[in-house]
C-alpha cells in the first residue's frame, strides 16, 4: 500500500499529545486563504516548470514524462516550491507503509505516537488506515497512539473506516458560519460540523482548532455562537485557539491580518465564559 507523502518529521511537539512522528500527506480538498503550507494542496501535474529553477540540478523529467526529485543533490532551498504555479511540490513521493514503518522504528522509543497531517489526511483514508493498522500490528510500535490532523471535511464512512485504528483526531473548524467558511476555504462546512459531532460520539475527538483571522472570523457574536455549538457537543472539549500568522502563507488581496495577542486572549475568555472548555492559546 502506497501513499503520496510530502515529507515526515521525526520529533514534533506541536502535533498532538507528547512527542510525535508526523507524516504529511500531499493533497487537500480545501484551498484555504490562510494555509501555511500551500505547497501541500495540489498533486504534482508533472508540468516540469520547476526543473530549470533548481540551482543544484536535483530535478529531472523521465522518458514517461514524470518529474523526478533527486534528494541527494537537493540543497533544500525550495525554489521549486516557490515557482510552482499549482500549489504543489515535486518532492512528494509515493511511499510504502513498510518504508514509513522502517523510518518510525528507530525513533519509536522517543514517541507517544504518530500523527498523519497534510495536506489532508483523509484524502488518502485507505493509506492512513493501512499505516495505522500496521503500527498496531507491530510489536515494537503497538504502544504508539495514532492521530490525524484534519480539516474535518470527510464523510461518516471515512471516520467509520478508521474507527478501529484511530486513537484521536484534531479537527479544524475554520468558521461556524457557512458563508464565511466558504470564503475562507472554498468549501461548505456541513461535513466539518457533522464530522466533529461524529468523532465526539465515537470518542475520537482529541481537540477542535479555531484559526482566527482578524476581521474575518473573530467577531465576538460569531465566537459566542461557536462556543455554544461546541459546548452542546462537549462542554469540556479541548479547544485550541490559533492566531493566524503570515509566515508561510500566500499573498492575499486585501492582505490577511494577524490577530493581536489581546484579541486572542479575549476570545479565549469568551470561550471560557461559555463553557468549561480546556482552552489552549497559541
Amino acid at each position, binding site marked *: 500500500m502506497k501513499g503520496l507523502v510530502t515529507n515526515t518529521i521525526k*520529533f514534533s*511537539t506541536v502535533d498532538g499529545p*507528547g512527542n510525535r512522528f508526523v507524516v504529511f500527506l500531499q493533497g487537500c480538498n480545501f484551498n484555504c486563504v490562510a494555509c501555511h503550507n500551500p505547497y501541500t494542496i495540489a498533486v504534482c501535474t508533472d508540468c516540469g516548470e520547476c526543473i530549470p529553477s533548481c540551482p543544484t540540478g536535483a530535478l529531472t523529467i523521465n522518458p514517461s514524462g514524470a518529474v523526478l526529485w533527486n534528494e541527494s543533490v537537493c540543497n533544500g532551498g525550495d525554489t521549486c516550491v516557490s515557482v510552482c504555479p499549482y500549489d504543489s511540490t515535486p518532492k512528494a513521493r509515493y511511499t510504502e507503509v513498510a518504508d514509513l514503518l522502517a523510518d518510525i522504528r528507530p525513533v519509536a522509543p*522517543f*514517541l*507517544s505516537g504518530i500523527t498523519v497531517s497534510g495536506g489532508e489526511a483523509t484524502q488518502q483514508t485507505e493509506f492512513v488506515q493501512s499505516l495505522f493498522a500496521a503500527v498496531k500490528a507491530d510489536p515494537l510500535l503497538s504502544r504508539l497512539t495514532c492521530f490525524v490532523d484534519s480539516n474535518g471535511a470527510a464523510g461518516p464512512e471515512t471516520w467509520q473506516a478508521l474507527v478501529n485504528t484511530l486513537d484521536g483526531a484534531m479537527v479544524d473548524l475554520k468558521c461556524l458560519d457557512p458563508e464565511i467558511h466558504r470564503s475562507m476555504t472554498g468549501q461548505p462546512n456541513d461535513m466539518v460540523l457533522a464530522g466533529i459531532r461524529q468523532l465526539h460520539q465515537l470518542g475520537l475527538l482529541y481537540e477542535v482548532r479555531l484559526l482566527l483571522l482578524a476581521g474575518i472570523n473573530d467577531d465576538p457574536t460569531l465566537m459566542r455562537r461557536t462556543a455554544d455549538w461546541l459546548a452542546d457537543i462537549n462542554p469540556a472539549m479541548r479547544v485550541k485557539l490559533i492566531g493566524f500568522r503570515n509566515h508561510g502563507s500566500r499573498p492575499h488581496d486585501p492582505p490577511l491580518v494577524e490577530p493581536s495577542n489581546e484579541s486572542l486572549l479575549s476570545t479565549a475568555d469568551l470561550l471560557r465564559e461559555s463553557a468549561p472548555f480546556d482552552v489552549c492559546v497559541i
Partner: protein
Amino acid sequence: MVEMNEFQERARTLVQGESLGYDQRLRRLAVLATDVLPYPAISAACREALEKRVICDMFEGHAPYTARYILPDYEKAIRQGLSYLELPPPTDLDDAISFLQIMYGHVPSVTTYPVYLGDLDKVLAPFVDSELADEELDRKLRRFWIGIDRLIPDAFAHLDIGPHDSRIARSILRVERSLRQSVPNITLKVDPALTPDDLIEDAVRTVFETGKPHFVNHPMMVADHGERYAAVSCYNSLKIGGGAHTLARLNLKEVALRHSGSSDEFLDQTLPNYVELTAELIEARIRSLVEQQHFFDTHWLAAEGLIDIERFSAMFGIFGLAECVNLLMSYDGREEAARYGHNAEADAFSRRIVERVAELVAARPMPYCNGGAGHCYLHSQSGIDLDHNVTAGTRIPVGDEPAMFEHITTCAPHHRYFASGISDIFHVDETAVRNPRALVDIIRGAFISGMRDFTFNLDSNEFVRITGYLVRKSDLVSIADRGSARHGSDFLAAAAENEFHLTQRAVKRVGCHERDPR
C-alpha cells in the same frame, strides 16, 4: 612555583579587585597562597604537556589539601549526629534543616563550597509525616532554599532527588519554580521502572522555569557505582560517602595537533603517550593530597565515618573530541568526512578514540582509587572559561548540532564509558512548553538509547547553562554593566559567554566545575 614579585602582583590585584566582594577576594587569595609552594613532582614531559595546556590540572593549586569533590553521607550524619560540630541527631524537620545548614558550612571542596548537599528527599524523609501539610512543608523548604542560595553562592552546589516519587521531591520542585534561583543545582534520578511519568513531567515543568533539574539514568549509574551514588557539581556522578580526589583533563584537540601520521598510529602511539602523562599528573596530585597533606588522616568527616577513602577515586577528563576527530580525518586526506556529528565515518572514529581512552584508563592502576576499583573514572569534561576554539567533552560543536534525534543517537554511544558523567545538553524551543509530555517521551527514549545524563535548555529561559552550571541572564548583564556579581560562578559564566557566545548557540549548553586561575 610562583615567584615572589609575581605573587605580590597577583595578591595586590585580588585585594584591590573592585569587581570582587570581600568573600570572593578572600577565597581567591587562599588559592594563590598554595601556588608559592612547589608543584608535586612530575616528569619533564608531564610538565611540558601541562605548561602547553595539552593536559590541564583545573588550576586546583600546587598543594591540594582537600579532595576536589566530597560527597558526605548525610543520611548517616543525621542518624548519628556530629561530634566535631557538637550536634546531636535532629528530631524534627526544623532541627534537620538547621543541622544540614551548619554542616554545609564545614564540608570542604575545591570551590570552597560544598558541591553535594545530599539526596534531600531521602535525607529529610524521616522528618516528614502526614501530620505536616504540603503548604507548611513548602514554607520550610522555601526558607531552607533561600538560605542555601545566600550562604552558598555557587552554582556547583548540587542536590539530588528520585528515582522514587515523594512529597518532598514534589515540594522541592514547587519551591524551585516559585523561587527561580540559580543555586542549588538539582538532579532527578530517573529509573524507567520506578519513576512515574507524572514526576518526570513535574521536573520538565521546572526545567521550563529554572533550567533545572538535570536528568540521570539511574539504572546505568547503579551499575557503575552501586545504589549509593549522586550527581554533584555540574555534572559529576560519584559515590556517596566518597568522591573524587582530583580532576585532570586531556585536550584531545591539542593531542591531535601534536600527531603526524595515520589514525591507527594516533590510537597506538600518540594517544597512549598523552593518556599516561595525564595519569602521571593525577597520580602525583593524589599522592600529594593523601601522603603529603594527609587529608584523610586529619579531616573530621573521615574521622566520623561520613567519608571513606575506599569510596574515592579520581576523574580522568577528556575534551575536544570533535576537533580531534576532524583533524585526524583531515590528516588521512578525508576532508569531506571531517565533520563530527554529521558524518558516519567521523562518528565511528570518535567511538574508537573514546573506546581507546577508556581501555587505557582502565588498564592504568591508580593509588587510593578503590572507589573506581583501583582506576580513575572516565569523565567527559564540559569546559572552563579559558577554552578557546575547542569543544567541551565529547560534544558536537555549539551551533553545529544536528536535529535532536540525530544529536542523541550520535552522542549516546559514548555515554556508557563515562562513569563519572558526560552531561550532554539539548536545546528546546518554546513550543515544548505547552507540551511537557513530549520531553518526558524524549527523556525516556534517550535513556533507552543508552544516555547516562543530560539536561535541557529552553531558548527563552531567563536561566542559561554556560559550561554546565546555571546563571541568570540578568546576572550576566549585571557583570557587563557593573562588573560585579554575588555568585562566584557568574564570573566564570561571563568569561565563557564572551569566549563562546554560548547564549547564542543554536541548540544547547555545556557542563562545568572549575577554579578560575585569575
